[in-house]
C-alpha cells in the first residue's frame, strides 16, 4: 500500500493550485506603486570601442526619467566572480572586470551600453532608439582555438591574451597517464563538441528594484535561485549596501536550470537606479534579450583518449578541453569546466589513471556558466561516447564493456580526487535492460527496417556529484563562498509549523516535499507544515538551489533543526507527564512515557511552549523554534543507466526518439511522483541538446539563434513517453536522509545515449564510416554524415 503522508508518499503538489488558477506570484507580477520602467540599449556588435554616446535627444523624449550610461557606474564595483581557479603552473586565473554598463568597450552582442528609465516601457524603448551611439568595430574572436592564436584580437585589452586559465588535473598524474596511453593495447580517440545551449526557463528574467528613504532600505525582487547569494554579491561587492539594509526576494520563479543562479547586471542596475531616483524601477527581459544576456551553458571542444589493455580493461583516460567563458566571467563560470567536470571523468568505471586538461578561453560571446548538470554532462558525454566508440572498434558489446569496467566496491576513491560513498552500477544496468526491453530491440529494428527506416539503440551510464558541497573542500578548490544550507523550524503555539529554508523552489516542489520530511519525523499530517522560501528577510542565510542540492543539503539542515525541536519538545513533554525525559517517546504526534499509557499530544506540548504556565522555565526557554546550518561531509553520487532507441529516416536524416528508458539510483526518495517529473524534464533537455538545440554565432560574433524561431526548443511531439525507474536505491551514507538528489540526472545522462543510438542506426544501415556526429544531430548533419 503506497504511503499517503510523509517520506515516500507521492503527495500531490500544494503549489499547483495557485499555478493552475493564475494566482502565482512571479516577479513580473510584482508591481510597486510609482514604479518606472527600464529598457537596456544593448550592443548589436560583438566587439567594439565606444567612441560616442549622446543621450541628449533621448532625454528630451516623452516620459523619460533618466538615462544611465557606463559613466554613472565609474567607481562602482563590477559584477564579481565567485570561484577562482588556479592553473597548471600555480597562477591565478585571469579575472577581467565586468562592468554593470559598458565602460569604453562592448564585448558581446547584448552587452548593455545604456539604460533608459521612463514612465512606461514603451516610452523607454522609444527613447532608447534616440540615443546616438558610435562604436568603432573591432575584430571579434568567436572560435576558441583561433582566440588563442598569437595576434588574435583581445577581448580584454588589459590581459596578455584570451586564455583565462590552463588547468591540469591531476597534474601529478600526467606522466603516468601519457605512459599508460603510449603502452596501451588499444587507444580509442574521439574529438567532439558539447554544443552551446541556452537554459531557457519559460519565465524570462525580471528585476524590480525598490528603495525606501524612510529607513534607507533597498529591496530587489528578482528571478533568482538563491536570493541570499545575490544579496551578498550585490550588496558587498557591487553596490556597497550593507546586508541589513538590503532585502532580496525571489517569489515564484518560472524555472531556473542554473541560469538564475548568477548575479546579473540588470539586478544591480535596478537596485542602484531605485536608490538614485527614489522610486521603484522594473525590468522585464524579452526572450531575445534573454538569449543575449542570460548566461549560456556547455560550449566545450574536447579530445578524449581511452586506453584499454588486451582484456579490454580501461587503463587510462586523457582529455584536452577548450571551454568557452564568453566575454566575462559569470558568477560560477570557472568552476564548471574544472571541478564540476574533471572530478567526474572516472564515471562509473575503475580506470586507474586519468588526466584532464582544460583551457578556458575568453571570446566575444555571451558569458557561459552552469546549465542543468554543469560540467557533469560534458564529462559524461565524452566518456560515454568514447566507450561506445571503443566497443565498436573492438567488436564487443557496449553494455558488456561497461559492465566489465564498473566500479563494484564502495567507498571508492577515484583518481580524480572524489570518493564515491555508495552505488550499485550492475543493478541499475540490470534494471535498465528490463525497463528498456533491450531483448526486444532486434524485433523492433526488424519492424522499422520493413518500413524503410533505420533503428538504433544507444546505452550509457552516468555518475554525478550532487549535494553541493562540503565548504572546506570547495574552499580549497577556489570557491569564494561556503556551500552549506540552513533551515529554521518555527513551531506555532497551536502546533502548526513554518519552516524557513535557504533552498529555493522554482519547479522542484519543495513546498510539498519538504513538509513530508518534517511530518514524517513528528508523526503529524503534512498539511500542518508550510515552507517559507525566497525572501532574505524571512529565511536564514542559505545558499539556494542548484547542483541537485536542495534535499541533500537544505533538507538535512531541516532534519537537524527538527531534531532539535523534538529534543526540546521531549523535555516539555517529560515535565507535563512528570516523567523522565529519557522515557519519552514520540510517535504519530503523541509523546508518551515508555511502558505506560500516559501521553500528551503534540499540540499540548507546543501550546505549553508558548503559554508556559506549567513549564520547566528553570531548565529551558519558552518557545519552540530552532535553526540548523548543515554543511555536507561529501558530495552525493547519484548514478544510473539510460537507453535510447531512435528511428532514422535515411531519406531525410531525420531522427525520432522512439523509446527512452532511465534507471536511476537517487538513494532514498521523498516523493516518487516529483522525482519522476524531475527526470522527465531532464531527459527532454538532454534530448533537446542531442537533436535540436544549438546556440549559434557567426564568424563576426552575431548571435544567429536569438529567438524561438531560430533556437529549436523541444516540443511535445519531439519526445516520447519515457520509462523511468528509481527503485535501485543505495542510500547516501553521510546525510541524515540518505538522499542523493535527482534534479540534473536526466540532462546529464541522456545526450550520449541519443548520439550512441544515432551512430548505431547508421551502422545498421551500412554507414559504418560514420563514427561521430556532433550535437545537435539535426537532419542536415545526419544526412551529410551519411553521404560524406
Amino acid at each position, binding site marked *: 500500500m503506497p504511503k499517503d503522508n510523509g517520506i515516500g508518499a507521492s503527495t500531490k503538489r500544494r503549489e499547483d493550485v495557485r*499555478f493552475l*488558477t493564475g494566482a502565482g506570484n512571479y516577479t513580473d507580477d510584482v508591481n510597486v506603486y510609482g514604479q518606472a520602467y527600464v529598457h537596456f540599449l544593448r550592443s548589436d556588435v560583438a566587439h567594439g570601442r565606444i567612441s560616442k554616446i549622446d543621450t541628449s535627444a533621448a532625454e528630451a523624449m516623452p516620459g523619460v526619467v533618466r538615462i544611465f550610461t557606463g559613466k554613472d557606474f565609474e567607481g562602482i564595483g563590477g559584477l564579481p566572480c565567485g570561484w577562482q581557479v588556479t592553473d597548471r603552473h600555480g597562477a591565478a586565473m585571469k579575472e577581467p572586470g565586468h562592468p554593470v554598463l559598458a565602460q569604453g568597450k562592448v564585448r558581446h552582442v547584448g552587452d548593455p551600453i545604456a539604460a533608459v528609465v521612463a514612465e512606461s516601457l514603451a516610452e523607454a524603448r522609444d527613447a532608447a532608439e534616440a540615443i546616438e551611439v558610435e562604436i568603432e568595430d573591432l575584430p571579434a574572436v568567436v572560435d576558441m582555438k583561433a582566440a588563442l592564436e598569437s595576434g588574435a584580437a583581445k577581448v580584454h585589452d588589459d590581459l596578455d591574451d584570451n586564455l583565462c586559465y590552463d588547468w591540469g588535473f591531476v597534474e601529478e598524474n600526467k606522466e603516468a597517464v601519457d605512459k599508460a596511453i603510449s603502452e596501451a593495447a588499444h587507444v580509442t580517440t574521439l574529438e567532439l563538441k558539447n554544443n552551446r545551449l541556452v537554459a531557457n526557463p519559460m519565465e524570462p528574467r525580471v528585476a524590480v528594484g525598490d528603495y525606501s528613504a524612510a529607513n534607507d532600505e533597498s529591496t530587489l525582487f528578482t528571478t533568482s535561485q538563491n536570493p541570499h547569494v545575490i544579496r551578498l554579491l550585490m550588496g558587498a561587492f557591487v553596490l556597497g549596501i550593507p546586508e541589513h539594509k538590503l532585502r532580496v526576494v525571489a517569489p515564484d520563479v518560472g524555472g531556473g536550470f542554473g541560469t538564475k543562479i548568477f548575479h546579473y547586471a540588470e539586478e544591480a542596475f535596478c537596485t542602484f537606479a531605485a536608490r538614485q531616483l527614489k522610486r521603484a524601477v522594473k525590468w522585464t527581459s524579452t526572450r531575445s534579450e534573454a538569449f543575449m544576456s542570460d548566461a549560456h551553458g556547455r560550449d566545450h571542444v574536447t579530445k578524449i583518449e581511452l586506453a584499454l589493455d588486451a582484456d579490454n580493461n580501461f587503463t587510462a583516460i586523457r582529455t584536452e578541453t577548450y571551454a568557452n567563458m564568453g566575454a566575462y566571467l559569470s558568477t560560477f563560470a570557472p568552476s564548471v569546466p574544472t571541478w564540476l567536470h574533471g572530478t567526474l571523468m572516472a564515471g562509473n568505471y575503475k580506470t586507474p589513471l586519468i588526466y584532464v586538461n582544460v583551457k578556458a578561453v575568453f571570446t566575444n560571446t555571451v558569458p557561459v556558466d552552469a546549465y542543468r548538470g554543469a560540467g557533469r554532462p560534458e564529462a559524461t558525454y565524452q566518456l560515454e561516447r568514447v566507450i561506445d566508440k571503443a566497443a565498436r572498434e573492438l567488436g564487443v558489446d557496449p553494455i558488456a564493456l561497461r559492465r566489465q569496467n564498473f566500479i563494484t566496491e564502495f567507498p571508492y576513491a577515484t583518481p580524480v580526487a572524489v570518493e564515491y560513498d555508495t552505488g550499485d552500477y550492475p543493478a541499475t544496468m540490470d534494471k535498465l535492460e528490463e525497463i528498456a526491453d533491450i531483448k526486444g530491440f532486434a524485433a523492433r529494428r526488424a519492424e522499422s527496417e520493413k518500413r524503410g527506416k533505420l533503428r538504433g539503440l544507444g546505452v550509457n551510464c552516468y555518475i554525478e556529484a550532487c549535494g553541493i558541497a562540503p565548504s572546506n573542500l570547495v574552499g580549497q578548490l577556489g570557491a569564494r563562498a561556503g556551500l552549506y544550507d540552513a533551515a529554521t523550524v518555527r513551531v506555532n503555539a497551536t502546533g502548526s509549523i513554518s519552516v524557513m529554508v535557504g533552498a529555493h523552489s522554482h519547479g522542484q516542489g519543495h513546498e510539498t516535499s519538504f513538509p513530508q520530511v518534517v511530518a514524517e519525523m513528528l508523526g503529524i499530517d503534512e498539511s500542518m507544515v508550510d515552507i517559507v522560501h525566497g525572501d532574505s528577510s524571512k529565511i536564514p542565510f542559505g545558499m539556494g538551489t542548484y547542483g541537485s542540492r536542495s534535499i541533500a543539503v537544505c533538507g538535512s539542515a531541516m532534519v537537524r533543526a527538527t531534531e532539535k525541536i523534538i529534543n526540546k519538545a521531549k523535555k516539555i513533554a517529560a515535565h507535563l507527564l512528570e516523567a523522565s525525559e529519557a522515557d519519552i517517546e514520540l510517535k504519530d504526534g503523541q509523546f508518551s512515557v515508555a511502558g505506560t499509557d500516559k501521553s500528551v499530544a503534540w499540540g499540548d506540548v507546543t501550546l505549553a511552549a508558548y503559554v508556559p504556565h506549567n513549564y520547566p522555565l528553570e531548565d529551558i526557554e519558552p518557545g519552540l523554534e530552532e535553526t540548523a546550518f548543515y554543511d555536507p561531509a561529501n558530495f552525493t553520487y547519484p548514478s544510473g543507466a539510460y537507453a535510447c532507441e531512435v528511428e532514422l529516416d535515411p531519406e531525410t536524416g531525420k531522427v525520432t526518439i522512439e523509446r527512452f528508458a532511465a534507471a536511476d539510483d537517487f538513494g532514498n526518495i521523498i516523493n516518487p511522483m516529483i522525482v519522476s517529473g524531475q527526470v522527465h524534464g531532464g531527459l527532454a533537455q538532454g534530448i533537446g541538446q542531442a537533436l535540436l538545440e544549438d546556440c549559434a554565432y557567426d564568424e563576426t560574433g552575431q548571435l544567429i539563434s536569438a529567438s524561438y524561431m531560430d533556437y529549436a526548443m523541444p516540443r*511535445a511531439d519531439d519526445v516520447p513517453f519515457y520509462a523511468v525507474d528509481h527503485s535501485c536505491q543505495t542510500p547516501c551514507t553521510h546525510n541524515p536522509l540518505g538522499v542523493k538528489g535527482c534534479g540534473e540526472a536526466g540532462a546529464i545522462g541522456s545526450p550520449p545515449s541519443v548520439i550512441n543510438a544515432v551512430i548505431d542506426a547508421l551502422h545498421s544501415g551500412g554507414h559504418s564510416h560514420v563514427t561521430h556526429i556532433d550535437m545537435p544531430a539535426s537532419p542536415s548533419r545526419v544526412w551529410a554524415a551519411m553521404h560524406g
Partner: protein
Amino acid sequence: MTKVSMTVNGKSVSGEVEGRTLLVQFLRENLRLTGTHVGCDTSQCGACVVHVDGEAVKACTMFAGEAEGAQVTTIEGMANADGSLNTIQQAFQDHHGLQCGFCTPGMVMSAAALLKENPQPSEAEVRDYLEGNICRCTGYHNIVKAIMAASGQDVGKIAAE
C-alpha cells in the same frame, strides 16, 4: 489612447489603451490578471494563450483593440463556480503536469480548446496540438498524460509513472 471594452471571465471591463497595446498587456497591466504570461516575443511559446470568443488565441498576437466587444476567458476564469479546480486543472495536479507553473496557464487553455474540438484525443493528437506551447520543466510526459486523463481516458495503461 482609445477606449476598449470587452467581457473578461464574465465581467464587463474597459480601459484606455494605445493602438500598439497587445491584448496580453491589457490583461496583465490594465486588469492585473497576471495569470496570463509572456514567455517569448515571437508567438512561439504559448504561455499567453487565452480564449477569445471561444477560440484559443495567443494574447501576444492580437492588439487589445482587436478584442473590442469580445468574450475573453483567461486562466483566472477556468475554475469551477465554487472555486475548485476544473477537470483539466485537476488532472494537471493529479498527474504532476506542471513544475514551475509558468507555461501552465497556456497549457490549460490550449488543453481546454483541444478537448472542445476533440473530446478523446490520442497521444499523437495531443502532442501535435501542443506544438505551439513550450514547457521546459516537465518533458511533456505528464502534460500529455494529464490532458488524456482529463478526457476520461485511462492513462495508467498508456504511460508509466
